[in-house]
């Protein structure tokens, strides 16, 4: 926890949102020099070489999966390693058959239907906790009320409660409320499980916004609503984006919550549930899994690439005072 907050205070100023990537445009004299100095201090050729090596080793299994997804012959997949497909004499074995099977669907429904379920499940499950957590974080950061520290610790303590413990009681409540077997159970469950971390992260970013900024706004006659929307929210964009990525990836890749609360019906089940079923009841068609995995990976990868500049900035944010 302190590890996340530490960089904000320890003065790596050159990489804060004010300068990172936009240092040249800041127009402040010395900004570029400081960034360069920080860069010198933080980089070393050895570290870079090791990072590249780890990155390569890390990517090998994924690359193998990618190669496998294009291998047409089931027998080859079963009997030889994926690297043998890279031998130019075997290039004729590549085909799009598995992707075709996965997308057109030989089973109950094809992957495309489940894609929509996943999107419908994920978007509110990301927006709801961010919305609630922003309000809660604002209250914790800028409103002085009795017991706010204890309450904050209490909320963060909820983070350690394992999901599995909450499942049966939560499901019982959903049944009593008549929400069972609707998207609401998925949205609410993911929102609940995501809220403690969301409040904690957003609060830490929000706390670092200079008090003078808020006080100046108040002197000018702004109320809480105006301060929240006009001052805080624009400054929070990188933090919101980085939490959104976390929550999006967690919800998109979730199987446990979806199966336990929503059930595995074509109306509700996300793409991960279909992926788990794709191999068939007895696992005979596991060769389809590599292609299915890459199809389901498209959206999270796109989201990550689209938001990654916020991601890096968001992790280092909080250094606005620099």
């Amino acid at each position, binding site marked *: 926890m302190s590890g996340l907050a530490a960089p904000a205070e320890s003065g790596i100023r050159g990489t804060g949102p004010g300068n990172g990537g936009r240092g040249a445009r800041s127009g402040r004299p010395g900004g570029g020099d400081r960034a360069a100095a920080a860069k010198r201090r933080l980089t070393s050729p050895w570290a870079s070489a090791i990072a590249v090596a780890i990155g390569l080793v890390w990517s090998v299994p994924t690359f193998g999966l990618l190669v496998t997804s294009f291998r047409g012959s089931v027998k080859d997949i079963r009997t030889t390693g994926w690297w043998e497909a890279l031998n130019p004499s075997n290039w004729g074995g590549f085909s799009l058959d598995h992707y075709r099977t996965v997308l057109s669907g030989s*089973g109950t429904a094809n992957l495309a239907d489940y894609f929509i379920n996943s999107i419908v499940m994920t978007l509110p499950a990301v927006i709801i906790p961010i919305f*609630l957590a922003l309000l809660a974080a604002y209250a914790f950061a800028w409103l002085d009320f009795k017991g706010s520290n204890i309450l904050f610790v209490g909320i963060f303590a909820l983070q350690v409660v394992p999901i599995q413990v909450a499942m049966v009681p939560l499901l019982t409540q959903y049944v009593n409320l008549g*929400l069972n077997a609707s*998207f609401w159970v998925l949205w*609410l469950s993911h929102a609940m499980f995501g809220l403690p971390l969301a409040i904690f992260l957003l609060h830490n970013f929000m706390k670092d916004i200079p008090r003078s900024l808020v006080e100046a706004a108040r002197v000018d006659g702004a109320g809480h609503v105006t301060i929240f929307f006009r001052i805080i929210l624009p400054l929070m964009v990188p933090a919101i984006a980085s939490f959104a990525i976390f929550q999006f990836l967690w919800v998109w890749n979730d199987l446990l919550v979806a199966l*336990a609360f929503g059930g595995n019906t074509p109306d509700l089940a996300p793409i991960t*549930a279909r992926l788990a079923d794709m191999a*068939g*009841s007895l696992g005979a068609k596991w060769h389809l899994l590599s292609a299915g995995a890459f199809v389901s990976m498209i959206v999270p990868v796109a989201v990550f690439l689209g938001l990654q500049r916020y991601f890096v900035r968001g992790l280092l944010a909080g250094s606005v005072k620099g």
Partner: protein
Amino acid sequence: MKRSIGSSAIAIGLGLALAVSMAACGNNDKDKDNTGASKGGGDTKADCAAYEQYGDLSGKSISVYTTFVDVEGASYEESFKPFEECTGAEIKYEGSKSLTADVLGRIEAGAVADIVAFPQPGLLQQAVATGKVLEAPGAVATNVDQYWTASWRDYGSVDGKLYAAPLGASVKSLVWYSPDAFAQAGYSVPETWDDLLALTSQIVEDGVAKPWCAGIADGDATGWVATDWVEDMVLRSAGPEVYDQWVSHVIPFNDAKIVGSLTEMSKILRDDKNVNAGIGDIKSIAATSWTDAGTPILDGQCFLHRQASFYGGNFADEGASVAEGGDVWAFYLPSNDPSRKPILGGGDFVAAFADRPEVVAFQTFLSSPEWANAKAKVTEGGWTTANNGLEKGNLKSPVDQLAFGLLSDPSAEFRFDGSDLMPASVGSDAFWKQMTAYFAEGKSEQAVADAIEAAWPK
């Protein structure tokens, strides 16, 4: 902390109030869509005479929860169509491979489907222990008595009361082989266990390939294939009576008869001359996926592979024809006593959690020959039942017909897969792990049996 719980409860309460009102609207829309779809979907008009007993169930819906997904699940949904068309009821089907893990939680939360197909009698017993499972209605009991043998009724009963009618079944006592390879080498299908051992040594002598291939790996369930082997051996070398005592722990797991059965199995699986054809040595049995273990038969690298009737689907996926004169076929794993014909198998049992008239009607339908025949007609392969009201010719796949023939043979003595009947700490834990160690680490038969006995809950 107290304050935190209080305020979050209010927040959740407000959220839920909003949620309930919106969910209510959402559900209405969905119902309309679904009834529209099911009415439009019926293109073949079924003969509804047999369904008149269930009455008019228009507008009623029944939810079903099974372990069958993908193609298998689709064939179940398809088999419910005649019922839907003739009675007007709507079946909401849900299949999930995680049923065994989450069904008890759903029962506890009150979120369980009207009808659940339990894949193991042990799980059914646990469910019955919650007190939520309803006893089978009279019409179901009548069907079970009429169309199933007594041992099937026992597996669906707890403390003498029938809770669940059997649904599908599989036969595990099969040995797969290639009829072509047998014909070329001049081998014939063995009639007794001794014949099978003699055939094994004959193949070793001829030296074209090792006789047996085997594999027991299956992710976190690694070892179950080996437990099936052991169960088949206990049935054959010790007999079905000893098998029942062994499964219910009247005799200990390390009883001399059980160790003797393990030793009998080792004549095939723990001899480097016999295994593991086309794959590796004895240790490779533990590391080879069961889905891949039989395929060397198709390449002529292996002659024999013991696996259940549903394995025919794996051969079919490889493009092989599974039939008596085809690329690959199976024979009954024989015993030395010609007067007895023990069959090891598995199956599902349908229990109900509601007693609305439409649920009772559907439960009765599932235990009837009408459903068994409807299911057979829409299934490409990998399904059979012990319901003797099934017309054999309706099964499309020859190996399913073979399995059904064995199940409906009056002289056959059916026994359910023992590891599914034993307590979970043995049947899906110690038994699996010790059998894996038996192959991977070369543990002795006695040591394996002692270790499993030690794991039995006191």
